[in-house]
């Protein structure tokens, strides 16, 4: 029985040589996965399935290395050379939408009703992008490590408090059994810093920018809460609880797996090798520094470029891609979090009782998107530099002041970024 649909597809494919199919309109699409075999295979599968499923549109895909993808898109936008469908990192989307090279996504809200909030991109009240997955960050350690040092296993309802967390780190450090008590991933420069570390700041009660107006960072990035965060952040490095900015990327990769780091602050995409290395690995929520435990949300999403002449075709492709089976396939292939309960149920690791189910819970319960503003792109860079400088011993108040000045100057230069 299962053969029938396949034969049907084959027939369609054969028929597509007929004149009607030759009239299929070509849609171009850019993707950030060049060099990533699994990811390329998955996305190519969706494209070829889509092309075979109907005769109005033919999608052709061009892949880019991730590290330079945004630069390529910005350059192409400048030169007026964007494709129909682009993929975009969630927090960057408002910048692209505001700058006028994305258009709203004509997909009915009902289609995405049960998606995780981090997989949906909105700007100015309109839907612009949807993702096939979300990502989440967790405090990763081993049950045996916690037991050995008599540290409580935190839960979503009762995460570690700041004091508990600090005491735990000191206890581990003082034992001398590990190179570092915790590895925050300072080797991963770039978007990792605001994505992974701004939730700490938010938990302290600060933020990268004042979200009520998005016009200033004064008081939120250099207020008392932020200063407390900064002092704590610096103390992690002065007390040698965590590797600093010159951490070797290879150590980031292998340090926890080889037992040199007791705890690691890491994303779900890195979970599979951890499960293979240890049978008692735990994925735990972030500590609560006073304002709740929180993690960053949003990953890559699909949207339509402003210059596309065929938004209906592009939307048709995106809708096609949002099938549970594809979302499940991405999750199985590269360990990402499926956006819906149905797709989660179809996965190997996020289904009920699956080893990574906890990430779905984390994502759902405490994920907070990064500031939804076109100014985020610049603010994120400023924030990254501030955190690196503080980690390297710069004066906390001066550094945060300087960051505030730079973010505010940028907002002013951009006429308030359209808020």
């Amino acid at each position: 029985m299962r053969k029938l649909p396949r034969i049907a597809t084959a027939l369609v494919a054969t028929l597509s040589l007929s004149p009607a199919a030759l009239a299929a309109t070509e849609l171009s699409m850019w993707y950030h996965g060049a060099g990533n075999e699994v990811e390329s295979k998955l996305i190519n599968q969706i494209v070829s399935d889509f092309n075979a499923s109907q005769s109005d549109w033919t999608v052709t895909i061009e892949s880019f290395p991730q590290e330079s993808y945004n630069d390529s898109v910005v350059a192409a936008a400048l030169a007026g050379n964007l494709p129909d469908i682009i993929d975009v990192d969630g927090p960057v989307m408002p910048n692209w939408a505001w700058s006028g090279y994305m258009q709203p996504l004509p997909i009915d809200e009902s289609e995405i009703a049960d998606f995780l909030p981090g997989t949906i991109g909105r700007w100015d009240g309109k839907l612009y992008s949807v993702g096939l997955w979300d990502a989440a960050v967790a405090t990763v350690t081993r049950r045996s490590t916690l037991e050995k040092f008599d540290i409580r296993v935190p839960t979503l309802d009762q995460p570690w408090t700041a004091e508990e967390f600090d005491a735990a780190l000191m206890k581990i450090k003082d034992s001398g059994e590990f190179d570092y008590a915790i590895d925050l991933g300072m080797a991963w420069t770039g978007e990792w810093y605001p994505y992974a570390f701004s939730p700490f700041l938010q938990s302290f009660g600060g933020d990268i920018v004042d979200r009520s107006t998005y016009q200033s960072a004064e008081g939120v990035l250099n207020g008392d809460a932020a200063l407390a965060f900064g002092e704590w952040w610096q103390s992690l490095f002065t007390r040698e609880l965590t590797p600093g900015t010159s951490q070797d990327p290879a150590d980031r990769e292998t340090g926890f797996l080889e037992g040199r780091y007791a705890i690691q602050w890491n994303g779900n995409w890195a979970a599979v090798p951890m499960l293979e290395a240890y049978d008692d690995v735990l994925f735990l929520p972030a500590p609560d520094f006073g304002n709740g435990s929180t993690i960053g949300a949003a990953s890559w999403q699909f949207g339509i470029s402003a210059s596309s002449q065929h938004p209906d075709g592009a939307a048709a492709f995106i809708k096609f891609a949002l099938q549970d089976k594809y979302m499940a396939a991405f999750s199985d292939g590269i360990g990402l979090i499926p956006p819906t309960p149905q797709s989660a149920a179809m996965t190997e690791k996020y289904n009920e009782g699956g080893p990574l189910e906890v990430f779905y819970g984390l994502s759902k319960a405490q994920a907070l998107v990064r500031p939804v503003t076109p100014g985020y792109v610049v603010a994120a860079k400023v924030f990254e530099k501030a955190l690196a400088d503080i980690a390297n011993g710069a004066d906390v108040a001066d550094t945060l002041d300087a960051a505030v000045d730079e973010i505010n100057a940028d907002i002013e230069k951009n006429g308030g970024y359209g808020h």
Partner: protein
Amino acid sequence: MAVVSQDNRGLRLAVRYLVLALVAIVFMFPLVFMIISSLKPTQQLLSDTASMRAFLPVGDISLDNYFAAFARAPVELFVFNSILITVITVSASIFLCSLAAFSFVYLNWRGSGLVLSIALATLIIPFETIAIPLLLFVSRLPWIGMNGIEIGWLNTYHVQIIPWIADALTIFLFVQYFKDLPGELVEAARAEGASWWQIYRKVVMPLSGPVLATAAILKSLKMYNEQYLWPLIVVQDEAHRPIMVGLGYFFQLDVAWGEVMAYLSVITVPVLVFYLVLQRAFIASIASTGVKG
């Protein structure tokens, strides 16, 4: 002092060779590390850096990284693109720049001093600082192609070639060289009624072997080794990407360093071989430009 014993001379010679060899090691070891590492699995490669094993082909040695690198990215395409772009740019460059230099040195025309000064001043503009204005410019330039006139140069080979053809350094090298050629030859040819083109073609260029080689070598290294930012912003399709952009394929979140080393070796070895084969001409030619000062 006058009489040096045989032993002493032997010792001195040994010391000389020892010094030469030590310096040679300093210049070789990163490259040896690269090639040796490309044969090791990433895990071993990383742990080997803690000891002298980093320079020895020991442990799990194989060509797996090379196969993996070729599977991950169209490496041969990137190398082909880079070589093609390099060859065409360099050929055009030495022709047009030598022609201009010839004009500056031998022809007496109004404004030549000013024009030369402007050209040389561009020597101090780093490319990175004009890339965006240049992008805006080339994206609006017309081009006559297979399908008639098209607007915009993006996603082509010529956008990676034409802006790079003329440069101040190449012109400068030719100017310096031409200045020191015996001017009487040109005068004699002129007196015999030869046209400027004939003088350029038959008198000056045949004498310019060394500077041609220098200019070509410097330009080749620049075109093959340093093209990153420009292709990144003007080329969006894989078909036209050069090697340095291809490097990005290997930097995923978790870097497969073994494959990176393999890729670095693949893109570096052609230049090294090219250099080793031609090294005599290579060094002789560069040296000849130094004489002028």
